[in-house]
Each structure stands twice: as C-alpha cells, then as structure tokens.
C-alpha cells in the first residue's frame, strides 16, 4: 500500500474504534431502551469500518443484512430520556444546566471540574462562557481538511483522498482541541458524540446502502432501459432530443441518487448517439450541461440520502423530507434553464 492508502485506512480504523466506544457506552447505558441491539448495530458498522478493505464482500454483505434486520425490527434507538439538552429548547435556563441525564451526571460525579465549570454559566446566558474560543474546535475540522487537500494537490496526489484523510484527522484534532479548551473529560466528549450519533440513528448508513442499490441497478441494466426508452419514443428533432436527454438524466439521477452514476449511462445511451453525433454538436457544451441537469434530480430525490436525508437528521428536522421540499421549487425552475442554455449555446 502506498502512503495515501495507509492514511485513509487509518482514518477508517479510527472511525471504527470510535464506533466501538459508542457501542460500549450504549451497552453500559442504564436508560437505553435497546442497549444490546443498538450496540450490536454500531459494533457491526465499526467492524466494517476497520476490516471493510479485507473482509470478503459476501461476509460484509451478510453483516450489512444483519444491521438492516436489527434496524428493521425497530431496535436501533437513541437513549431515553433524550440526554442532550438542546440549546434551542432551553426556554428558561441555559442548556448546560438543563442537561441532567443520569448517565452523564453519574460519569461526571468524579469530574467536578466540568460540572462547576458548566454551572458558572448563568441562566438566560446568550453566549458561551468560553467566548469566541468555542469556535476553535469546529474550525479545526475544515482547516485540517483543506490543509490535507492542498498538500495532496501540491504533491500531485488524489485531492479527494486528501480531503477525506483531512476530515478524519480534523475530527480527531477537533476532539483534542475541544478537550483542552473546555477542560472537559474524555467520557463526556465521547458520550456527547455517542448521543448525537444515536439521535441521527440508522439513517447514517443509508448513503452507503443506496450506493449498493445503485450498483445493483446498474448491473440489472436499469440505465440502459431508460436510455432505450428515450431512443425509442423521441423523434429526430434537436430541441425535443435535448429535452429528452435532460429528462432522462434527471430521472436516472433520481433513481440512482447520484448524477455521477447516471452520467456515463446517459452519455453513452442518449447524449452521444442521438445529439452529439447526428447534429455535430460540441460535446463539451452538451456533456457538462447534461451533468448539471442531473443535479436537479439529486436535489429532489430521497435516494440522495447523504445530501437530503442525513442533513435533515443532523439538523434535527421534524420532517425527514423537509430539505427535499425546500429544494423542489429551486430544482423545478433550474431544470428547464438547462434545456434552454444547452439549446442556445448549441445555436451560437
């Protein structure tokens, strides 16, 4: 293995170990409704994170099926009562004081520093007792991500891998910065992270599952089916073909949840044989606008869970489809603009 691969693997291992810790904390949590099954779920995810590169795909597949079965049975839950007092919901007092969940106070009983520190925060406080320094941990994450990406760029390595490695080490560094800054305990840090992860829940693995579904759709020839339908029904007319091409791209992106998975299929099945070749169109114009026509689809499909469903969980939205709903009018207006812009640029 070359260095970038080793670094990326180590980031996966770190995440896996963190998931092991989350699982252990869940197992020990006296207030958890399903400690064993929830812990098993995150434990399996940890195993896949650590060993995913080496495990035979069939075994990983079976492990995934077990995870989905546990979630399907409704056994992946956050701890009760919700222990992370949300700042928004703190109507009379500060969020810190409202947070009196038994597991944390039990753990914190010998960590008087953090509690007294927190209790100095008066009620109705509208800012952090740490002032602007509280931004340091979260700013650490993008800073380190960007530094890694830039370094990889300079060293002519894959920038994408660099950004991922940076995200991993950024997350780790942010934990250390947060610990040093708040003088909090490690258990506090990990338990808070565990609660946030549990509140988001099994939806966190949805993007990975959907990527698998995309591959199976491709193997089953769904894309070719869509491309063939377009070829079959649309007359030989440039403007109509542009509409059909953009529509095919958007629909297939909605199915795959990802415009990058849809593009090669539409390009090979519709764009090149029906538009670029017969009408002698500049492929650069047609191709890049076809790609972004797919993004309109990404904005309105729950299949793009990493962009639309996971963020809704992360922001604790009541409606899991709220982000999709907000993006719908935007996508519906931007989509016909693709047809018009492509047609106009071709005419120029």
């Amino acid at each position: 293995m070359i260095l970038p691969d080793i670094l990326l693997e180590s980031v996966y291992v770190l995440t896996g170990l963190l998931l092991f810790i989350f699982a252990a904390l869940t197992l020990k949590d006296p207030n958890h409704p399903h400690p064993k099954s929830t812990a098993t779920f995150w434990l399996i995810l940890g195993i896949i994170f650590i060993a995913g590169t080496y495990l035979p795909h069939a075994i990983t597949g079976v492990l995934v099926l077990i995870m989905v079965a546990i979630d399907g049975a409704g056994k992946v839950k956050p701890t009760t009562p919700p222990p992370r007092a949300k700042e928004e919901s703190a109507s009379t007092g500060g969020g810190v004081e409202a947070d009196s969940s038994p597991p944390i106070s039990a753990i914190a009983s010998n960590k008087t520093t953090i509690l007294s520190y927190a209790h100095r925060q008066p009620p109705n406080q509208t800012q952090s007792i740490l002032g602007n320094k509280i931004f340091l941990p979260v700013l650490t994450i993008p800073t380190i991500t960007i530094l890694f990406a830039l370094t990889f760029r300079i060293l002519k390595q894959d920038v994408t891998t660099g950004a991922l490695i940076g995200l991993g080490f950024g997350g780790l560094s942010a934990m250390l910065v947060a610990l040093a800054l708040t003088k909090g305990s490690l258990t506090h840090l990990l338990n808070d992270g565990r609660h946030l992860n549990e509140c988001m829940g099994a939806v966190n693995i949805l993007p990975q599952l959907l990527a698998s579904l995309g591959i199976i759709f491709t193997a089953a020839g769904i894309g070719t089916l869509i491309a063939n339908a377009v070829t079959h029904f649309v007359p030989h007319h440039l403007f109509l073909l542009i509409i059909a091409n953009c529509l095919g791209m958007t629909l297939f992106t909605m199915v795959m949840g990802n415009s990058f998975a849809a593009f090669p299929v539409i390009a090979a099945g519709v764009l090149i044989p029906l538009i670029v070749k017969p009408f002698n169109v500049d492929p650069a114009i047609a191709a890049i606008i076809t790609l972004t026509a797919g993004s309109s689809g990404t904005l309105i499909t729950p299949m793009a869970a990493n962009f639309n469903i996971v963020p809704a969980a992360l922001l604790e939205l009541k409606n899991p489809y709220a982000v999709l709903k907000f993006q719908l009018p935007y996508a519906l207006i931007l989509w016909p603009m693709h047809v018009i812009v492509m047609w106009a640029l071709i005419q120029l």
Partner: protein
Amino acid sequence: MRFSERNSSSPRSVLNHISFSYNPNMHLPEWTKLAGILLVLIGFALRLKPTLVVVAAALLTGLLAHLPLFTTHGSSEGIINMLGRAFAANRLMTLFIITLPAVALSERFGLQRQAAHLIQKFRAATPAALLILYQLFRVAMGALGLRLNGHPTFVRPLIYPMTKAAAESQTNDGLAASAASNLPSSAIEKLKSAAAAAENYGNFYGQNLSPVQPGILLVFTTLNTLGYNVSVWRLVLYALPIATLSITLGAAQFWLLNRRLMKENARLQ
C-alpha cells in the same frame, strides 16, 4: 467520495457494467426490473424504514435481473457480494461520524449560542444575506478545487445557528434575543432546510468550476471513452452559465423566504 456528488465506482467500471446488462435467458419482460424502483417509491412515500426498503429493492431488482444471491464459481457477481463491496467502498460517506464528538461537546459549552451572539452584533446580517453568503462561499470553495462535506462541518455548528439568530433579532426589532426563541417552529424548520439547501446548491454547481473536481474529470473521461477529446477548461467554461443561474436562483429563494418570515412575524404581533 461523497463530499461532492460522485459515484462509488469509477466511471470506467460503470461503463463496463452496461455491456453485460442484457441477459438472453430472461423470461420476464425487461421492464419488470423497474419493480425495484417502484418499491423504493412506495416505501419512501409510506415512510417505512428506509434501510429495509433499500435492501428489499436491491434484492428484488437483482433477483428480477437473474443475478445470483452469492457469487459462485463462474457466475456473475452475487447480489450480497455487490452489497458488501459497495457498502465497504463507500465508508467515506459515513466518515463524518468522527466529527460528531467535537461538535457535540462544543455545543454543550454554548457553541450555537455564541454563533448566534456573534451574528446579532451585525444589524446587516439578515437570514437571507447569511444564506446567500454561505452559498457563494461554497461555490468559491468548489472553484478552488476544495471539497468538504459542509453539513456537519459548517451548517449544523455555525450556519444554522447564525441564520436563526439573525431571524430572531430581525423579528425582535433589534432587541437582544433572550435564550428563548421567538420564532414559530414552522419558521425554524424552514431556516434549517434553507441552511442545508444552501450547502447543496453551492456544492453541486460550484464544483464544476474547477478542472480538478471529480465532476469535470468524470465528464472528461466518459467523453474520452466514447471517442471525444475535450479540454477540461472548455467544460469549466460551459459550466459557467448554469453556475451563475444557480447562484441567482438561490439568492432569490432565500430572499423570498426572508420576506415571508418577516410578514408572518408582522401578522403575529
């Protein structure tokens, strides 16, 4: 890489898959394979467990396409094997979990309140202005060839609380907001969605403004495979009109949202 839109497998492997999609031993008409998509539509509409729905659709589609459950000697790749392969290859999409402890501990110490406090010092900071600025920032990052998943790193810890605080001080007529929010929960939902959308808008359309971004590279390699050689810079050039429109349209949507929030507030008072 899922910071930006990107498929799990390389463009070339996707192309390879297309060629073996036709199975001469098929008994059912081809369109029955679409049953998996129908299952997803119904399952998501009924809000069944999304993980179950997706795996059921994967099994159904694979079986209808006569794929084996497991790879056996000489067979094509099994459905469960594909599931495992793609799940492992896409761990990067779930890597954000490593950022959660730092964000959660910072929030315990008042991160969101401090972000709100900071923004309330600026009278000019309206929710719309913040959302537009954030979208522009993400477009600029994309044009610089930098990618990161902004939802956990920027939107939850910083952008959403700032936007919410700006909305509060706007409706409070400049009075310092108390710890209690004066916004109705429908407004909170809208602001959260808008913050998440600003990230997506900026990310999707900004990334095509750099020739090193995976979108441009995907188009370049796909066209190459199909026998066309184009310059990556020409691709960037023709990405410009849509990128400009995407920014304008985002700005309009955020401005309209802002206006509606103020109207609703005026009606409530």
